[in-house]
């Protein structure tokens, strides 16, 4: 069932495939984020409770949902890399980590900037904020581990193991943090969540979620390509590329 993956275990094939996919991803990502953001900022109606401050949702929710999805993607790549011994998959995982960390940081920061006008404080130890913070630490751990190995082939494998350990722990951490914050509900702060969002707000949100996902995909592909080149610097095909591009 995984046989189709095997040709792409070859770094050169993986590089070529990524080059082919990249323009599609980036074009779609740019146009979707453009449409979603303009729609969200200019055309979506003002929320009757939160006023215009709710417009942060159009970047906060995409970043928050994609931060988790990117971790899942990283861990799945790492899993493929460990189980089938495919180095390219390890490199993909290593390529996703910094992007995921930035997205998680954005989710945290926009959450704080939204929280200040709504709750009157930049930070609350709310379950979702806390687990997002822990997620950021998990990302930073993977990045730091990757950075501290000199041999990057090993580094990617070690970081992959850590990503898998992290992904097993994420549900446990999430559950425990939720349980903990329900236990300590001292403050009156609650995120007002309306399940029934009018379509005029929902569509730009969905468009931006998709756009963020594609953007993460596009960035991962770019980093993945660079990673492949760096790890295969002694291969003739990489040397040809280097000679064509590097000598100016």
């Amino acid at each position, binding site marked *: 069932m995984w046989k189709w993956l095997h040709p792409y275990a070859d770094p050169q094939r993986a590089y070529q495939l990524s080059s082919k996919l990249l323009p599609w991803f980036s074009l779609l990502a740019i146009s979707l984020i453009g449409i979603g953001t303009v729609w969200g900022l200019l055309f979506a109606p003002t929320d009757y409770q939160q006023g215009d401050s709710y417009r942060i949702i159009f970047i906060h929710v995409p970043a928050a949902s994609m931060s988790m999805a990117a971790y899942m993607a990283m861990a799945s790549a790492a899993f493929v890399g460990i189980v089938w011994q495919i180095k390219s998959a390890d490199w993909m995982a290593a390529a996703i980590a910094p992007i995921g960390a930035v997205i998680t940081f954005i989710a945290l920061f926009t959450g704080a900037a939204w929280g200040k006008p709504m709750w009157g404080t930049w930070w609350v130890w709310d379950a979702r904020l806390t687990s997002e913070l822990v997620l950021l630490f998990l990302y930073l751990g993977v990045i730091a581990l990757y950075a501290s190995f*000199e*041999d990057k*082939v090993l580094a990617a494998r070690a970081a992959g193991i850590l990503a898998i350990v992290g992904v097993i722990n994420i549900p446990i951490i999430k559950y425990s943090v939720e349980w903990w914050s329900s236990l300590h509900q001292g403050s009156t702060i609650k995120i007002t969540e309306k399940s029934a969002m009018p379509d005029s707000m929902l569509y730009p949100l969905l468009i931006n979620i998709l756009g963020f996902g594609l953007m993460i995909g596009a960035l991962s592909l770019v980093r993945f390509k660079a990673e492949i080149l760096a790890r295969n*610097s*002694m291969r003739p095909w990489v040397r040809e590329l280097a000679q064509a591009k590097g000598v100016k």
Partner: protein
Amino acid sequence: METSQQTILLSAKELTCIREERILFDQLSFDIHAGDIVQIEGPNGAGKTSLLRILAGLSRPYSGNVLYLNEDINHARDEFNADLLYLGHLPGVKSELTAEENLRFNLQISGYTQFETTPILAQVNLTGFEEALTGHLSAGQHRRTALARLWHTNCKIWIVDEPFTAIDKKGVEELEQLFLEHANNGGCVIMTTHQDMSIITDQRLRKIRLDYQFL
């Protein structure tokens, strides 16, 4: 040990090793038969230790694989480990334990159940030092504690990295004798050394040369 001299115990298939963006060896293939004494030679930094570690399954090559009796060592790890005796740069001797305790532990985790440590330690001239903490022994005695394992083993594949370091002349001769006997009994020895050997002649020795690669 009924291995004919033609049995291929270990074979390297297109091994490539890359360290710090440098190719140590590329597409290296060879077979090691029962009865072989193989010396890996080459200048410092050519990748001798890396090759030994890959053959032992401690390091993973960048590409290629190592076969033990025609099976990938990563798939037959338990069988391979049971037939492999590896002595690396680091002796694997704990200085907090006595020579006797070290040997006992090393033999136990290799799975041996019935053994007397005193005669084995006598083989490596450690009689009288059985109860001494190895941390207090000399460098040569420390090394001998690690080597003692060679006198009580039924592993066919011996991989030894610089076995003669810190060993005196007589000790080297005894070791050479042991390697020769082991090979003649259907085992194989893969080693690196910078010392000249007196008993194992060049005719008996098979050499695999690694050179410093530029590309």
